[in-house]
Each structure stands twice: as structure tokens, then as C-alpha cells.
């Protein structure tokens, strides 16, 4: 698409925004309800698009994308009025007549970049936030998931207000053209490398950004005693590794940290569970494209890495399939242990004592999530206090994505800016403080000419307390 065309498109959105239409509660509600309709009526099409792009089974699609979106839209519909309301702020002196409140207002026209691994989920979840907050939106879906991109380009105009929400398809070139324009916020989900380009481009216009990146999310498995606990834990580990898009997920488990004594148990259970779950090929997604397939196969080419494989390892370039593969202690400086894997390879790093994981993680880039399977309260406390990550979840993996009350986002190299639930609303809003004073109360020594006497008086009054001083300034103390 010509950049001139893009210019006009964005101008149209800006005109729509300036008209005030998107600020209306009824407009926002109608859009959200339409989104719900889209999810319900076009579900089959969504399943088909995701099958085409990623070979995802429709149960996975429902569990990870459609179902989560339905929950998010309903949550937004239930809470929108509260979120939009001005909130009274405590003025320390209950100074009548003087009042303060925070008024949320939309930012304007926002740009969303979504990634290819959850192409529908990661496109619509930020749209929910942007629309709830009253903005006009441009969505650029990833070209690496073309069927999903096509689905969005075709259906969003059918359900949402075409003058306020637009989908622009394309690759790198289109992304660059979009970044030259002025936006009121840019929301990006993807890799660190592209994030840097986005933030640099945003800096030219002083556009605030939210970057949802990734990292190597470790799962720490403590020695669990009960066989039931072990089974549930490993089920969740397997579900957290190969379940979401065959390991191609920012919050998916990247590698395991296990005590060396406990490792054999873990490996056996993993093997058994993989066998139990993946009885058919269709239950696991494929690698998205040849480029990523080769990237992943190259990780295994390193001889020291290949040696450490204990399970799986077979690859099929025609179907872009890589078997769930487990490795034990590949070299820590190999690519598989320094880069985000984003695929179905699971290294297990063994430690002498499980507590050593804290030292292991220190100094490594902060991931989007840390998972720990343990019943030990003290260990849990240490992990919370001594590690840093976007979020930390105990005894489960990935599921924090579905929890609206904790913000979802990274820290350090895993990004900044948080969303989900009301955090989405806040991310796309400016919370504007509004103070009102009356003319009735006035106090003279706020004003020049100033002299020693006035200053002395101020100091004296100030010694009582700061609030007294503010009272004075506000003209309520004589």
C-alpha cells in the first residue's frame, strides 16, 4: 500500500476521533458487543485460519485464543462504566470548596502490532483495551500468519466501526511506513530486535510505547513427594511447553531447572505424559515457517547439544514438524541456552540443590514469566523476593494469561507496559487530574512583595506540618 494512502487512512481515523464519536460510552459498548458477535459467529473461520497458519487444533485455539478473548470482552463490558468514571481524589484537607478528581481520557489514534503465534488473540486483546479506552485503532497483524491476517482484514470491517478501527496488512515495508506517521500510542508484541526499531521510531514523535516481548521463561521443579502432585505438575509442564503453539509462545516454558537427584523422575514422567497427550499429530501445532524450522534445527546441529538429547529429536521439513524433544544439560553457552528457543525443544538444566536456581537466574535477562512447582513456602518466598520477571506463577504455567487482575507484561529485556483487564484500559488512557478551586478563599501572603516577616511566618507555620502549609497556600488558614 502506498504511504500516501496510509496517510489518508490515518487522517480519517483522526477526524473520527476528533468528532468525539469514540469517546461515547454507547459507541464503546456497541463495539465490544460486536466483537463478541464476531468471535461467536466467525469461530469456524478462526479455527480454519489458525489451522492453516499454524496447524493448531481447534481445542487449542478455543482454549488459548477464542475462549480467552470472550472472557476479556465480557470483563470489559462488565467494568467499562466504572473504568470510564472520574475518580474523586482525596485533597488532604477536605478543603471546601476545592476538589480534585482523575478523569480518564483516550489517547487518540493508536497503532497495534501483533505477532504470528497467537495472531487472533494478540490482535484482539489489545483492541479490546484500545476501544474500551475510547481510541481509534490501526491494527497491523503479522504477515507470517497470513490466513489470520486475511481473516482480520476481512472481518473486522464487517463487525467494527470502519471509520474508527482499521486493519492494515503487510510486511516490513508497511510496518516502516506506519512508523513514520504520528501515533498517540504504539503497542507491540514481538521480538526484542524489532522492538528496538519500533521504540526508536516512536521517539521521533515522542509516542509512548508498550512492548510485550519474550525471554527464556524457566520452570523450576522442586522435588515433589506425592505421586499425584508429580503427575499434575508434569501435566502442567507439558501443557505449558508444547500446549501453546508447540512452544512458540512468549510465556511458554523455555527450559527446566531441576535438582539432579530428581531429574530422572522428571524425565520419565515427561516422556510418559508426552506419549499420553500427543497420540495424534494434529494435537500439536506445526513450526510456523521454514525460516523458524531451520533456526530450530540449527539449534540441534551443535554436536554438544545433539549429544544431550534424551528424547525426541526427529524433524520433518516437509510438514514443518519437530517432535517434542528433551535435552539434558546442553552447554550453557550454546545457542539453545542463550537465545529464546520458541519451539518444541526442552532443555533440562540440573542443579546440585534446587535453591541454586536463584543464583542461576541472577544476571540473566529478566523473562516474561518464571514458573516454580513447589510446596515449600520458604522457597516460594525466596523466589518472589530474589528473582525478577514479568510475573511469577506457582504450580502452573501459562495460565496467568487468563487472570485479569494481575497485569500482564514484562520487565527489563522482556518489555514494559502492562495490559489485560483494567490494565488494558489504563494502558490506552491518559488519567487526567482535574483540580477545582473557588474564588471565595484568598490569603494574602501567598503573593509578593515578599519579605522576611512573611517568610518567617511561613517557616513557623510549616513546622507544624506540611498540610498546614498547603492550607495556607490554598488560602484556608488565616
Amino acid at each position, binding site marked *: 500500500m502506498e504511504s500516501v494512502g496510509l496517510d489518508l487512512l490515518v487522517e480519517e481515523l483522526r477526524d473520527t476521533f476528533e468528532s468525539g464519536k469514540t469517546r461515547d460510552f454507547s459507541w464503546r459498548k456497541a463495539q465490544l458487543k460486536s466483537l463478541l458477535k464476531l468471535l461467536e459467529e466467525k469461530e469456524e473461520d478462526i479455527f480454519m485460519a489458525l489451522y492453516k497458519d499454524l496447524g493448531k487444533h481447534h481445542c487449542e485455539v478455543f482454549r488459548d485464543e477464542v475462549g480467552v478473548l470472550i472472557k476479556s470482552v465480557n470483563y470489559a463490558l462488565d467494568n467499562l462504566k466504572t473504568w470510564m468514571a472520574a475518580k474523586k481524589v482525596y485533597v488532604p484537607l477536605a478543603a471546601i470548596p476545592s476538589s480534585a478528581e482523575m478523569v480518564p481520557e483516550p489517547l487518540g489514534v493508536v497503532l497495534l502490532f501483533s505477532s504470528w503465534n497467537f495472531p487472533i488473540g494478540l490482535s484482539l486483546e489489545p483492541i479490546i483495551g484500545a476501544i474500551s479506552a475510547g481510541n481509534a485503532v490501526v491494527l497491523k497483524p503479522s504477515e507470517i500468519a497470513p490466513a489470520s491476517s486475511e481473516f482480520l482484514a476481512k472481518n473486522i470491517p464487517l463487525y467494527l466501526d470502519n471509520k474508527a478501527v482499521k486493519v492494515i496488512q503487510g510486511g516490513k515495508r508497511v510496518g516502516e511506513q506506519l512508523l513514520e506517521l504520528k501515533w498517540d500510542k504504539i503497542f507491540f508484541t514481538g521480538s526484542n530486535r524489532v522492538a528496538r526499531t519500533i*521504540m526508536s521510531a516512536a521517539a*521521533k514523535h515522542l509516542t509512548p510505547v508498550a512492548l510485550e516481548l519474550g525471554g527464556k521463561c524457566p520452570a523450576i521443579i522442586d522435588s515433589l513427594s506425592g505421586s499425584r502432585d508429580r503427575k499434575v505438575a508434569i501435566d502442567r509442564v507439558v501443557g505449558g511447553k508444547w500446549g501453546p503453539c508447540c512452544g512458540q509462545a512468549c510465556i511458554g516454558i523455555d527450559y527446566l531447572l531441576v535438582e539432579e537427584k530428581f531429574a530422572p523422575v522428571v524425565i520419565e514422567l515427561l516422556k510418559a505424559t508426552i506419549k499420553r497427550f500427543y497420540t495424534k499429530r494434529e494435537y500439536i501445532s506445526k513450526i510456523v515457517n521454514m525460516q523458524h524450522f531451520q533456526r530450530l534445527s540449527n539449534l540441534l546441529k551443535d554436536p554438544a547439544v545433539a549429544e544431550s538429547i534424551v528424547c525426541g529429536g526427529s524433524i520433518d521439513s516437509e510438514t514443518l514438524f519437530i517432535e517434542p524433544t528433551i535435552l539434558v544439560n546442553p552447554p550453557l553457552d550454546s545457542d539453545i541456552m542463550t537465545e529464546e528457543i520458541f519451539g518444541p525443544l526442552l532443555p533440562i538444566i540440573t542443579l546440585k540443590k534446587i535453591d541454586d536456581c536463584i543464583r542461576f537466574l541472577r544476571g540473566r535477562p529478566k523473562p516474561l514469566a518464571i514458573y516454580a512447582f513447589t510446596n515449600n513456602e520458604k522457597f516460594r518466598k525466596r523466589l518472589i523476593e530474589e528473582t525478577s520477571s514479568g510475573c511469577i506463577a*506457582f504450580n502452573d504455567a501459562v495460565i496467568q494469561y487468563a487472570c485479569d487482575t494481575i497485569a500482564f507484561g514484562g520487565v527489563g529485556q522482556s518489555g514494559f507496559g502492562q495490559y489485560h483487564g483494567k490494565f488494558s484500559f489504563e494502558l490506552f488512557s491518559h488519567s487526567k487530574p*482535574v483540580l477545582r*478551586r473557588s474564588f471565595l478563599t484568598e490569603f494574602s501572603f501567598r503573593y509578593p512583595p515578599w519579605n522576611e516577616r512573611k517568610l518567617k511566618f511561613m517557616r513557623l507555620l510549616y513546622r507544624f506540618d506540611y498540610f498546614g502549609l498547603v492550607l495556607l497556600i490554598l488560602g484556608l488558614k488565616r
Partner: protein
Amino acid sequence: MEAVGKGVDSASERVEEIVGELRRSFTERRTVGYEWRVAQLKAILRMIEEREADFMAALYSDLSKPQMEAFLHEISLVRAACELLLKELKHWMKPQKVPTKITTFPSSACIVSEPLGVVLVISPWNYPFLLSLEPVIGAIAAGNAVVLKPSEVAPAMSALFAKVFPEYLDNSSIRVVEGGASETTVLLEQKWDKIFFTGNPKIGRIIMTAAAKNLTPVVLELGGKAPVVVDSNCDLKVAAKRIVVGKWGCNNGQACVSPDYIITTKSFALQLVNALKNTLEAFYGKDPLESKDLSRIVNSNHFERLTRLLDEVEVSDKVVHGGQRNKELLFIAPTLLLDPPLDSLIMQEEIFGPLLPILTVDKVEDSFDIINTGTKPLAAYLFTKNKKLQKKFVMTTSTGAILINDIALQIANPNLPFGGVGESGMGSYHGKFSFDAFSHKKGVLVRGFGGEARARYPPYTPMKQKLLRNLLNGSIVALILALMGWPWRE
């Protein structure tokens, strides 16, 4: 005191060493504990109390700031911020429990505030004490190690910080690095966990571009042209006083929240101008050059800049009051202009000085359109008793903050976030917002091993598929319950 390095290389090495030391300190968890943070905050209070005279002297040397302003706008605000943090810190550091829903049942969740790591604070020259210490206090309260780079345009304050910080604060975790553009460039090449910048938008862009290389989040407190709309339906006497003290009583107009220009109706303009003239005379005397209550223009660069704004063709003849200047004393009298052209420099750039243009419109609502054609300012003000007009103003004006019937007070309320939007910046601070600005809010989700959901996992047998399918048509709650396998039995 950190002497300015002899070459970029040695400056670079020195800065790298400092940042390395701070990072080690942070990794060893020196700054994380409650006791350390409290000790530093208390030390800052002691520093302010014991060295107040030195700080006031530095403010006078750098800016000729009147004592009253220095005390009210800088010293007392920082002291108040410290005291508030000391009072609330324990409470703010506690994990905040949040409800969890059926989706993740059974589970419990909370949000934990954790420090970001090693942060950089770059402060400006106009409130060199306040705008250095307020963010530094926030960074410390949140448990970070911090480097402060004060503005070289306020050299006395910068040197004073470099001298007293090591005397009062933990040098292994809190440092001052003095210098100008080249030192700042060197600092920006380091890896920070957050950069907090107060200054102008041009530098703000440079800072954000540098931060992008390391994906460092930033808070940018910038500026803008803060408009004041004056309606004829107001108490003119009080309004004039508040406007005058908000403009010339705030570092002589060199403040980001100071009124930049006024918009009023054609019919009211004369009255307003007269009221302002009278108030100016009452506050600063017939010859403002003699008044001790005005800061000077900070340096000759800014003096040249401001005289250029005044002397532009089509602008110089719009002066209706003031206009006198004295280059040696870096003095420009409080100056009012009436209807300079909208495309003149004085109406395009942030003035940041003692010049106050007054634009006139037919209807007071027309002023809202003028404001909205410009970039979003840090603050917007309206003087009126008309509640409907107030409401319209709040709804249509996008700005950092709105204050009705007064000027600049928003900075004194710690319950309100202070920050801009659009060109006036991103992020906010003051009060708890300072603590939040320098924290990462980490979600913590705790599940038990009970409540397992078979339908979550493959193999996706026909029965599971049917289950999901049936529940799809039912309520989402039932569906999610099934996903969680509760109270499901296979």
C-alpha cells in the same frame, strides 16, 4: 566530587565504573531492604535541614531565586515528599492481594512491587533542587540504585549535590555525575533499568532514542504552552493575582506549569490587561527591576532567545506592558502582549520566560479550538464561575492536568500524578506515583495441585471436543469451569 573527564574515553570509563559499582550493589541486594530505603530518606531529610542555607544560596547563585520561592516551591515540597514516603513506604511495599476468578480456580494472586535496578535521573536547571531530589527520592523509596545527573546550566546546585551526596547518602548505590552534553551522551550509552528525564521535548527525543537501544523504559517530564482561558464571569481581582503569581512568581515564568499565554474574549480583554497591570505593580512595584521578588533569566542564551521572541516583526508592536530589559542583569520586565500573530515564534514555541501574550476571541468557547490545534501541554487553566464551561473545558482539553480558578497547585497534591501527555511527556510521579514509576509491579499467581482439568490437555478426544462444543453454547462461566475440570468428573 566527580571532575569532568579529560576526554570522552576517560569519561566513558569512569561512568562505566560507576554504573558497574551500582549494579553490583543492587545485585547484592543492598538497596532492596526497607531499612536501607528508610535510612537514605532520613539522611536526605537531615541533609536538607543541615544544609538548607547552602541549598538556598545555590538557588540564588544559579537563578537569583527569591527566598520565598526557594522555600515554598523547592525545599518544602521535597521535605514533604520525603515525609510522605517515610510514612507510607511500609504500606506501599506490601504485596497487594487481588481477587482471582473462576478461570484460574483454585488460586490466589497478588501484585508485588519490586525495584527495577539501576536508574538514571536527569534533571533541569529551573527547579534544580526539586526536580533532582523528588525523582531521586522516588527511586530510592522503590529500592533502586540511582545516578543523578543535574543540569550544568545550574552549576552551583550541581556542584553542591556532588559534594553533599557522598556525605549523607550511601555512595555505593547513589551517585551524582556532573557534566553537560558529552557526559550525558556517555551516560546514555550505559544500560539502565529506567531513565527519568525532566527537560525540553527536543532532548526528550534524544533520550528516548538512546533508551530504545537497550529497551529501557523512560519517564519524560517535558513542557508545552500551558494556556490560561479567562472568562468574563470570574472574580477578576483574585484571578489576576493568581495568574501573576503563577507566572512571574514561578521562577519568573521559567517553569513548565507556568502560564504560557492567555486567551480571553475581545470584550473582556481590556479589563483583564488592566487588572494584570495593576497586580504587577502591586507585587513588583513601578520598576520591576528593583523588585527582589523576581528570579532572573537563567543565562545569556535564554536572554537572547527571549529577546528574539519579543523583537520579532509584528510582535514587538503588540507589547502593552513592560518590555524593558537589562542584559547585564539578565533581566526582562514582566511583559504583556496583545494578540501577537499565531504563527509568530512567541506563539509557536514554549516561552519559558516573563512574557505573557494575550489572545482574544469572540466567544470564550473559541479558545478551546485554539488550544486543541496546538500540541498537548503539561497543564491547562480556566478561570470561570460557569460550571458548564468548566465541564466543557475538562471534556475537550487534552493536557497533563487541568486546574480551574488557580495556577500550578497540582504540583503540591501528592495524590495526583504529575506528568504530561503527547508532546508534554509520558509517565508521571509525585506521592505514590513516584514509588510506582520506579517499581515493577510483578504479578504473583499461586495455584495448588488440586482442581485439575482434563479438558485442558490432549488427546482432544471426541468426548472432550463435544464437551467444549456444548459448553461453547452455554455460559462462558460453565465453559471455564469445565476447562478447570471443576466440578467435572470424567
